[in-house]
C-alpha cells in the first residue's frame, strides 16, 4: 500500500508516510459520497423507496460517525479538531501547521457538512410528500403543516448542501495546487509528513463494533417509527 509512496518518501528526505485517517473514517466518507449521490438520483427520478433506503443508510452513517467522534481513533474525535473562533483565527494567522487530522478551518467545513446532512435526514424523517403516498417514519409525530414545511425545507436544503460540497471539493483542489494531497490521504489513509509528526492513535476494534451496533440499533428503531412511542 505504501510502495507507491516510497519514492516520495525518499525524495522528500526527512518526510514519512504516516497514517492519518483510520479505515472507519474513510469508509464513512466514501459511503456518504455514494449515498448522497444515490439520494439525489432516487429523488430526481422518483424511485422513492430507494430514496428512503438511501436516507436510512445516511442516518446510520451519521449516527456511527457521531459515536466515532467520541470513541474513535484520534483524528476522528471531535475533541481533537473542533475549535472555537479563536482557534480558527490563530490557525489563519500563523503559518506552519504540521499536525495530522483536520485543521481548525477544515473542521468548520466538516461540522457544517455533517450538520447539514443531519438536518437533511431529520427533515426527511418527518416530511410527507405531496400526494400522501410517502411519509417519513416519524411524520406521525408532527402536525400537518410541519410535515408540509419539512418537505419544502428538505427540497431547498439540498441545494445548500450541494453548495457546501462544491466548496469542500474546491478547497481540496486549492490545497492540491499548493502541494497537499488531501484526496490521496482520504483514499489511502496516509499522508507524507515531516518526521516527528504526532502519530494517529487507532481505536480498538471492540469500540468499532460497539459503535456500529449502537448506530445500527438506533437506526432500526427510528425506521420502525420509534416504538413504543405513539403520537
Amino acid at each position, binding site marked *: 500500500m505504501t510502495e507507491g509512496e516510497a519514492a516520495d518518501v525518499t525524495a522528500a528526505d526527512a518526510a514519512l508516510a504516516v497514517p492519518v485517517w483510520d479505515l472507519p473514517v474513510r469508509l464513512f466518507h466514501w459511503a456518504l459520497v455514494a449515498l448522497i449521490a444515490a439520494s439525489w438520483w432516487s429523488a430526481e427520478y422518483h424511485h422513492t423507496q430507494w430514496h428512503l433506503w438511501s436516507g436510512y443508510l445516511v442516518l446510520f452513517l451519521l449516527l456511527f460517525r457521531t459515536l466515532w467522534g467520541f470513541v474513535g481513533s484520534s483524528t476522528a474525535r471531535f475533541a481533537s479538531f473542533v475549535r472555537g473562533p479563536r482557534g480558527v483565527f490563530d490557525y489563519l494567522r500563523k503559518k506552519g501547521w504540521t499536525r495530522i487530522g483536520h485543521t481548525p478551518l477544515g473542521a468548520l467545513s466538516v461540522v457544517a457538512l455533517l450538520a447539514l446532512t443531519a438536518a437533511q435526514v431529520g427533515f426527511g424523517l418527518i416530511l410527507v410528500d405531496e400526494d400522501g403516498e410517502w411519509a417519513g417514519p416519524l411524520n406521525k409525530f408532527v402536525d400537518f403543516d410541519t*410535515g408540509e414545511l419539512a418537505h419544502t425545507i428538505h*427540497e431547498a436544503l439540498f441545494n445548500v448542501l450541494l453548495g457546501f460540497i462544491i466548496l469542500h471539493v474546491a478547497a481540496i483542489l486549492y490545497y492540491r495546487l499548493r502541494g497537499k494531497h488531501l484526496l490521496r490521504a482520504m483514499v489511502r489513509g496516509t499522508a507524507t509528513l515531516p518526521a516527528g509528526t504526532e502519530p494517529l492513535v487507532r481505536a480498538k476494534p471492540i469500540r468499532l463494533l460497539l459503535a456500529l451496533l449502537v448506530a445500527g440499533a438506533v437506526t432500526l428503531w427510528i425506521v420502525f417509527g420509534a416504538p413504543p412511542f*405513539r403520537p
Partner: protein
Amino acid sequence: MTKLLIATALLTLAACGGGGDQTNATLNQANASGAEATAAVENAVVNTADTPLERQQAVALMRKRHEGYEQIGKAMRAAKQGIDRNDPAAVKSAADRIATLAPQAIGWFPAGTGPEAGKTGAKAEIWQQRAEFDRGMQAFQGAARNFQEAAASGDIARMKTAQANLGKTCGSCHDRFRTKDD
C-alpha cells in the same frame, strides 16, 4: 489571507439558504384571486381561449382545478398520517373527502385549459392523449371508491393497502401528465 477568503465564502454560502421554491409563491398567488372567478365558470363550457372572456373563464377553471387537487392532496396526506397513527376515524373522513372529489376531477380538464392558457402543472399530453388520460381518471375514481370502502371497514391493514394503491394511481398519472414539482 486565502484561508480568510475561504472562510468568508463559507459564511456567504450559509447566508443564502432559502433559495428553492418559487413555484409555491406563484401557486399561492393563483389561489388568492381564484375564488371570485371560479363562480363564473360553473355553467360555462370552455373550449377555446380566443376571446378575453373565454380566457378569463379558462384561468378561473384552472384555479378551481388547482384548489381541487390541493384538497385531494391534503386529504391523502391526512389519510397517510391517520394510517401511521392508527386512527381509523381520521382515515375515514379523509377517504370520504377524496371519494367526493375524485369524480369531479375529470371535469376539470376541458380543452383550452392547458399550458397555452396560463401557468399550470397540466401537460399538453392530457389533450393529446385524451383516451389514456380518461382511463387514468377512471382508475383514480375506482381506487378512491375502494379506499372509501376500506376506510369504512375499520380495518387499518386494509386501509393501508387501499391507500397505497390509490397513491400509485395518483403517481402514475402525475408522472405522465403533470410537470414536475406541481
